[in-house]
């Protein structure tokens, strides 16, 4: 299945892009997806402790299973205003 991954602010700068598609086989949780993302962009992992994750535009707590077409966003600490 395909997961649509979004990166913002500092994470977008590190990856050089704000959007990518990650193809996964069988079941995949958010943690599995993050591992794949960190393999592609190792420097993103260093932000791991401060980054919040949203699945389909809602913050998630802990780990959840993903399904085909989900939009998973990696959000650094916000600083609007």
């Amino acid at each position, binding site marked *: 299945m395909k997961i649509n991954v*979004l990166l*913002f*602010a*500092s994470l*977008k*700068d590190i990856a050089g892009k704000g959007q990518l598609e990650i193809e996964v086989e069988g079941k995949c949780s958010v943690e599995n997806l993050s591992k794949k993302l960190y393999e592609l962009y190792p420097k993103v992992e260093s932000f791991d402790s*401060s980054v919040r994750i*949203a699945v389909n*535009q*809602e*913050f998630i707590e802990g780990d959840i299973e993903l399904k085909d077409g989900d939009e998973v*966003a990696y*959000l*650094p*600490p*916000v*600083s*609007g*205003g």
Partner: protein
Amino acid sequence: MKVEITTEAIDPTVISSSVKNIEAGAVLTFLGTARKTSRGREVTYLEYDAYPEMAEKKMAFILGELKEKYNITDGAFVHRIGRVELGENIVVIAVSAPHSQEAFDACRYAVKRLKSIVPIWKKEVWADGEEWIGYEGELYE
């Protein structure tokens, strides 16, 4: 209950007028502007990134909270993104309420929530560098 993320210049007057109501005795308008000095450094300009769809959802959610918690009559919440020059408007939060107390409480709460749950990010650009700003409690407190 208007909510908007926009790359265009924002006009506080229009936003503020939109919440006026004959049952409200108070309209409070918070305007955040790009200031020249930030934490002791001279800023050249600001750049805002956002997750626009989720940001608008969260802004609408916050207005819902204001209605629930502070009994506001109406509210509007607009945030600009992209490049913002010094002195330009960044964000407007306008609320109307029967009395001033509720309007103050509501508007202040909305600013706090903006800094906590709305996926928008600020980059400060100086003459000799730039930095994405993470959440720091004191920025708006």
